[in-house]
């Protein structure tokens, strides 16, 4: 697949889009919370993935991780420039958590909100914060440690616990 993408094969784009667009859009929309703008960012994300694919190094990490970084950075850039435009104050961690929760609550009925709610309701508040910061905001472990005033080792453990819980809930949701 990576070879096909490097060859700029149309099938490879189709594969990438079909398999990752929803996951990336979920991340982008969580950061931006504006569907129209999020779609714009998703478009930019795929353009950047496609045009900068040469800079992806398999030795450095997973393809999804690389794409996630691009999507997240573009989404954050987009909100930042938007915030700068309206001269709004820089968002704080609590804002993020609030926003994250807010998005989840305001999900429309057209997609699987029941399953999602099951998962989210099963997550503890501190796990929600960790997932928000690590996954949606892309804060490094050190940044999270400072934000949440936790030792670096604890951050790593909490990240693992949060994801384990997520996995567990996701499995449960599938069974249900």
């Amino acid at each position, binding site marked *: 697949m990576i070879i096909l993408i490097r*060859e700029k*094969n*149309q099938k490879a784009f189709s594969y990438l889009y079909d398999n990752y667009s929803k996951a990336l859009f979920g991340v982008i*929309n*969580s950061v931006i919370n504006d*569907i129209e703008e999020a779609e714009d960012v998703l478009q930019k994300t795929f353009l950047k993935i496609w045009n900068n694919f040469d800079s992806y190094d398999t030795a450095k990490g997973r393809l999804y991780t690389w794409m996630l970084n691009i999507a997240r950075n573009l989404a954050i850039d987009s909100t930042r420039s938007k915030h700068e435009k309206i001269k709004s104050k820089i968002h704080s961690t609590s804002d993020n958590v609030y926003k994250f929760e807010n998005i989840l609550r305001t*999900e429309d009925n057209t997609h699987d909100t029941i399953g999602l709610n099951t998962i989210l309701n099963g997550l503890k508040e501190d796990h929600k914060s960790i997932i928000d910061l690590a996954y949606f905001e892309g804060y490094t472990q050190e940044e999270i440690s400072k934000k949440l005033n936790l030792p670096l080792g604890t951050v790593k453990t909490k990240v693992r616990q949060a994801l384990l819980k997520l996995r567990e809930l996701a499995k449960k949701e599938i069974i249900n």
Partner: protein
Amino acid sequence: MNSKEVISSGLLESYVLGISTKEETALINTLCKENSELLKEIESIEETLIDFSSKLSPPINTDLKEKISTQLNFIAEDSPIAKVISIKNETEGRLSIYKLGIAASLLLFLTSLMYNVQLNHKLSKVNLELAQLNETKSYLADELKIQQASLKSMDTELEILSNPKVKTIALNGMNSLDKKTAMIHMNMETHDVYFNASSLPNSPTDKQYQLWAIVDGKPIDAGMIDMHSTASVFQKMKSVSGAQAFAVTIENMGGSPVPTMKTMCLLGNV
């Protein structure tokens, strides 16, 4: 660090989330090469994340994929068949350019050929006209010469006739030339004699008219008459002084020293 320790450390989660440090990322990459268990765990974490955020995703506009697709540069084709068609089209395109070129040059060639044929046709027509004109010209030049000569002789005749010293003598026909008349103009001062044979019939082919002047009763040769001369109606004859009469006989070609009396056909007194 064994596999279990790595898995339980939370490093793999950070790695997939893209928040691990450079050193941690490098370590995990190295460990993954030797340990399929770690790779499996990483894939599982990734799946969880993808599934989770996909559930968070609102529906995406169905046109977006196509919209993005139009902005990307696809180099490799989907299938070899598509490639073949593409190359074929290109070749056909090139071929049609060649065909067009050949057709254009052929058209140009035919046009020039037709033009040349037309031009040649015109040229030969012009040449023919020119030849006709030249012919006409030389005919007219000849005609002019004739007219000029005729005019000159008429001038001479007029000069002779208008000269008061010139006497006109009529010769009356007799024997074979009964009812015919010929005229002689003679300058009484210079004794120049001019014979006008315009009214006489042509002599037989082997015979010739000869003019005789009668001086003191004796015939003197006054010259042969040329019936075929076109130069002038008036023929200058030998000068004779003291002639009382003139006579014309029909003699053999070249004339005779003495007139043949029985062939005398014209006679007139001065």
